[in-house]
């Protein structure tokens, strides 16, 4: 057959320019048009509202105490000192131990990793089972689970203390990991279920036809395609578990207390006068891990949320 792709010159003779006077070509858009002012204006005003606290935290954490007492919290620091950060990290005292937040940091990491891994693994399997393997009663359990998302933690404190005691896990790291898995499960399962239901049905049917079983499909087909929702799950769980104070302090012992307990102790124990700069430095330090994880995967988070929440 003849090769048709060869480009052909324009058959019509290029007539002389026929454009007349009057508007022609791209419409000149004034870059400072009224719509743009409103658009960027509102965004900037909201951006300031959102950035204000971060600005205050950073600025105050770099000031010495005299400068704080005298000036107001919005003025930039005259002479910047990192002493409050050092103190918050290593020397701030909570009761007897004066080793700042550092002790809590490694505890938090030790709590975070297993909790995030376990809770996401369990929730993703739940979501997958609910989405593709409709078994009788599955939806009723799911509704109970969603109902669980609404129950305030305080209500469940006591029953879980008893539950863990009977299982002999009270006060141990495993106990806390289990608690985080339980309380993370509702919303995560909801997200995973929505995500997997939005996946094309044919994919799942094709795999079934090829003889792949429940786990085969999960690992070979579903998992590889669910990076966005995994990112969302990781961000939600990391922020939730890292920032938790209540469970960390009730279900573990002092040598396992997460960083938030140290933060609470530093901020709430007043050596003479309240050291705002150390408190703020400690606050930023505690928020650093979830913030960094969020900054790294912000974009994926939006795409994941789209798939996870929208198709619900």
């Amino acid at each position, binding site marked *: 057959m003849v090769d048709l792709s060869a480009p052909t010159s324009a058959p019509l003779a290029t007539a002389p320019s026929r454009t007349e006077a009057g508007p022609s070509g791209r419409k000149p858009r004034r870059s400072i048009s009224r719509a743009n002012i409103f658009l960027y204006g509102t965004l900037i005003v909201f951006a300031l509202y959102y950035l204000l606290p971060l600005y205050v935290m950073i600025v105050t954490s770099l000031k010495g105490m005299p400068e704080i007492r005298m000036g107001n919290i919005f003025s930039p620091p005259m002479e910047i000192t990192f002493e409050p950060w050092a103190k918050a990290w290593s020397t701030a*005292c*909570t*009761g*007897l*131990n004066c080793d700042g937040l550092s002790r809590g940091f490694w505890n938090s990491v030790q709590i975070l990793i297993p909790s995030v891994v376990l809770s996401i693994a369990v929730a993703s399997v739940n979501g997958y089972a609910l989405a593709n393997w409709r078994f009788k009663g599955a939806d009723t359990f799911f509704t109970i689970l969603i109902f669980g998302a609404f129950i305030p933690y305080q209500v469940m*404190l006591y029953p879980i*203390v*008893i539950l*863990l*005691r009977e299982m*002999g896990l*009270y*006060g*141990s790291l495993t106990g806390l990991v289990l608690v985080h898995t339980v309380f993370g499960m509702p919303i995560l399962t909801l997200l995973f279920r929505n995500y997997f239901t939005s996946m094309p049905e044919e994919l799942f049917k094709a795999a079934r036809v090829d003889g792949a079983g429940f786990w085969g499909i999960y690992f070979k087909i579903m998992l590889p395609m669910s990076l966005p929702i995994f990112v969302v799950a990781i961000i939600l769980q990391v922020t939730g578990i890292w920032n938790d104070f209540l469970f960390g*302090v*009730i*279900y573990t*012992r*002092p*040598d396992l207390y997460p960083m938030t*307990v140290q933060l*609470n*102790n*530093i*901020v*709430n*124990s*007043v*050596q*003479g*006068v*309240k050291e705002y700069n150390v408190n703020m430095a400690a606050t930023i330090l505690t928020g650093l891990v979830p913030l960094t994880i969020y900054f790294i995967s912000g974009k994926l988070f939006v795409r994941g949320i789209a798939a996870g929440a929208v198709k619900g």
Partner: protein
Amino acid sequence: MNTFKLFLAGASLLALSTSAKAVDLEVTHWWTSGGEAAAVAEFAKAFDATGNKWVDGAIAGSGGTARPIMISRITGGDPMAATQFNHGRQAEELVEAGLMRDLTDIATAEGWKDIVRPSSLLDSCTLDGKIYCVPVNIHSQQWLWLSNAAFEKAGVPVPTNWDEYAAAAPALEAAGIIPLAMGQQSWQTSLAFQVLVVALAGSDVYNKVYGDKDAELAAGPELAKVFEAADKARAMSANSKVQDWNQATNMVITGQAAGQIMGDWAQGEFAVAGQVAGTDYTCLPGLGVNEVIQTGGDAFYFPVLKDEAKTAAQGELAKLMMSPEVQVAFNLKKGSLPVRGDVNLEAANDCMKKGLDILAKGNIIQSPDQLMSADSLTQVNDLFVEFFNTPSITAADAQKRFADIVASAD
């Protein structure tokens, strides 16, 4: 050379015998601020000296934050080795449930019965004849702390009792000084009220209302007088916008405020700030009207532990807390009074001395914690924090609601 070796053997033997083997004891408490932390350090130092190790489990945020954690840990079956509670009925149910260790054998061995004065402290620890806690200090709420500098600035002589102090309020305000510093936490406003009751209505009215839950007396004229004073106190502390008690104390130390009704643990803050009783600040027990000491304060309970060595170490810690030297060192730093009558505190400043001789004279009252259940006490606290923060509630309706609470209190 061999003497050295001998000495080594002896020392290790000695160490071995006294404390079987070095053991870590986790102690939870809520002393995280200024003077308190220094005081706890005394306990820790003394205990570490015995070869064991004090593992500090401080939880900041006053009893409100700490107690739930302690209770959950104990009921959850993973208790700490020792924990702080206030004198009174907070740990009552834990003891009844058999979760707390019986210290009667140590108490009798050490003869606590006759050294602890006032004996009511030990009574709060006893249940059907057995002793379950070690009282470590006496904190009396019945104190008014005044900043001499503030009164000089206002050109008013330092008052000696409540009425003079109330009369000086306008002058203080004129000088831009907040007459009465008051933290916004509920226990602080409630403390101020019951100090006013003891001072203006007298100890027996206090005992009848808080102890016997006498509702008509609570609604009666004596209490009405006290509610008037409370209304006055409310006006005086209207714009003291701080949250924690030691922030309020700090306002007195720096002269921003003229005075504060607070327990004797405030002395710790004055000490840390390097102020001297008598010259920089003045202390009026019982608001200078009815000099009385309230036996509030703290005691240590020892949950039952399975580990043999730890139980032994617990006994050691209990004995140590009651020993004279530790009592002196601890109470000096804490600004509280020792529980042992046979200890003299020459190093104590004159406010502590005032407290000691009131204690010696024996006019003592029990603290609300010892008289009322936590449930009723919290209702009283909520009433007064609401009263102090809502000017629209008049003294009369506050009294009526107080009487209702007392009627249903247990």
